[in-house]
């Protein structure tokens, strides 16, 4: 395993509804924790990268403003955006800068304050993260796009609503023990029962996606501090190394997508590239964080990552193999579904979880057996951007 670039510090704010502060203050929460985790000061940082999806808060060009607030001027700083996978893209760029020898230490900070706009405005903005010329005029939104995949899976792959529900029940199991999660409540099957008038998860959003199949919007920030080998050895007690990075993109318009029953192509593409770079296969991964913006998305991720064969992702959740004690634990921090999905912060938060898992510091979420290889799968838009990052001790 190449030990060139390591994560030496991780941080994350609480993921909440209605953060009582500005984006600067929100960014500070994750930054402070990551800096304390790394045990460094701003003088040690060579550059910073800020990541979010635009149009949630009013700040244009947030990098400079946030760099100043975090004490990271006069070092270079800039902004990276791939909607929901922005901070994974930021880490990829930070990795490259260190690999290229431009800087020794790079801070990657993802943030999103979604609560400044209403839920329907948020749907409209997310819809405009897809094809605004040819699709948004029909009234598209993220749940509807993912529902197209869910519908095809139900028709062709034997996926059931119960399978989708079981993904959510798993997420809720871990959301309850993750102090940083926005959704801390437990969920039971009765909550999805359409015959139960109190079933808060059963209502249709974009059929076949129900309320309980959708992730929780949240305000939040995440911070990943990367360093080259020399600095990692100097600063970090338990450096976690980046072993592989893969990325892919896909046509934005649904009319240009391949077979919907085959899932998101970017999942396959990004995974193949990351596995190749890391020199491992899916069987080597001991713990994973995948992009479960909707329950169907987690099931598609199982397949793209090679944890299950194409069309058979449902078998993993049926057998509970993605629980903490299973063959391949997935999203044991509650995932986007329960931990929450503050868009620009999500990838960094997923990485934080994996780093803590590999350091054996994940507390009640710790996967047994001292996992040595972990994976983060982060998707931007409706499978528009795919990112897979593999970490090792």
């Amino acid at each position, binding site marked *: 395993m190449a030990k060139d670039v390591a994560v030496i510090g991780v941080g994350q704010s609480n993921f909440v509804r209605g953060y009582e502060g500005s984006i600067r203050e929100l960014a500070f929460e994750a930054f402070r924790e990551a800096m304390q985790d790394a045990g460094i000061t701003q003088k040690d940082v060579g550059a910073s990268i800020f990541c979010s999806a635009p149009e949630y808060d009013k700040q244009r060009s947030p990098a400079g403003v946030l760099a100043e607030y975090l004490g990271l001027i006069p070092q270079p700083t800039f902004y990276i955006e791939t909607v929901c996978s922005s901070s994974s893209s930021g880490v990829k760029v930070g990795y490259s800068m260190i690999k290229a020898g431009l800087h020794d230490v790079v801070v990657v900070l993802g943030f999103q304050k979604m609560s400044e706009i*209403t839920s*329907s*405005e948020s*749907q*409209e903005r997310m*819809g*405009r993260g897809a*094809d*605004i*010329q*040819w*699709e*948004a*005029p*029909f*009234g*598209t*939104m993220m*749940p*509807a796009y993912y*529902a*197209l*995949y*869910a*519908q*095809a899976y139900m*028709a*062709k792959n034997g996926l059931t609503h119960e399978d989708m529900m079981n993904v959510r029940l798993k997420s809720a199991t871990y959301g309850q023990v993750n102090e940083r999660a926005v959704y801390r409540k437990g969920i039971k099957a009765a909550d999805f029962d359409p015959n139960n008038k109190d079933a808060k998860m059963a*209502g*249709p*959003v*974009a*059929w*076949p*996606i129900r309320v309980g199949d959708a992730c929780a919007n949240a305000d939040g920030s995440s911070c990943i501090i990367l360093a080259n080998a020399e600095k990692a050895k100097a600063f970090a007690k338990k450096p976690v190394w980046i072993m592989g990075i893969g990325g892919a993109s896909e046509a934005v*318009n*649904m*009319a*240009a*997508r391949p*077979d*919907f029953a085959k899932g998101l192509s970017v999942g396959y593409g990004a995974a193949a590239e990351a596995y190749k770079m890391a020199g491992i296969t899916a069987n080597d991964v001991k713990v994973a964080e995948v992009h479960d913006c909707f329950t169907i998305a987690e099931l598609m991720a199982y397949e793209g990552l090679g944890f299950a064969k194409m069309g058979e992702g449902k078998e993993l959740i049926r057998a509970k193999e993605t629980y903490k004690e299973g063959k391949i634990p997935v999203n044991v921090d509650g995932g986007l579904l329960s931990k929450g999905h503050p868009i620009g912060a999500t990838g960094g938060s997923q990485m934080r979880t994996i780093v803590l898992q590999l350091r054996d510091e994940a507390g009640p979420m710790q996967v047994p057996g001292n996992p040595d290889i972990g994976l983060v799968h982060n998707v931007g838009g409706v499978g528009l951007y795919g990112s897979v990052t593999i970490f090792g001790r």
Partner: protein
Amino acid sequence: MGFDKFGRKSFTAITKTAKFVDLLGEGKIEGTVCTKCGAKYFPPRSDCSACLSKEMEWFAMPTKGTLETFTTAYYAPFGFEADPPYTMGVVDFNDGLKLFARLSKAIPIADIAVGMNVSIQPLKYDDGQISFEIIKA
């Protein structure tokens, strides 16, 4: 007509493919084909990503396809609040072309199924907006 007339609500005012809306007004749903390499596009493009040509012609979309997948929205984004429930889907014309649109409200939601035979037709809204929709074959 300008492209701001396209769809329930347009987010694009100016495009070189605005003729698409004029064609819809004439009852035609057309894509574009590259006169250099023959690549066909729907939705239409004014530039060819296959051979980088800018010389494109309009062609009539097929009318017989199958519904590859669909979803019914019971909640709508900002600006579309009056519309739910509405169903959107993808038509596969089985010749390399697909199309995304809403399904006609004339089709009962319970009758909609993956694999059903469908066609497409232009659609005019009461407020003057113009679009196209998926109908039963």
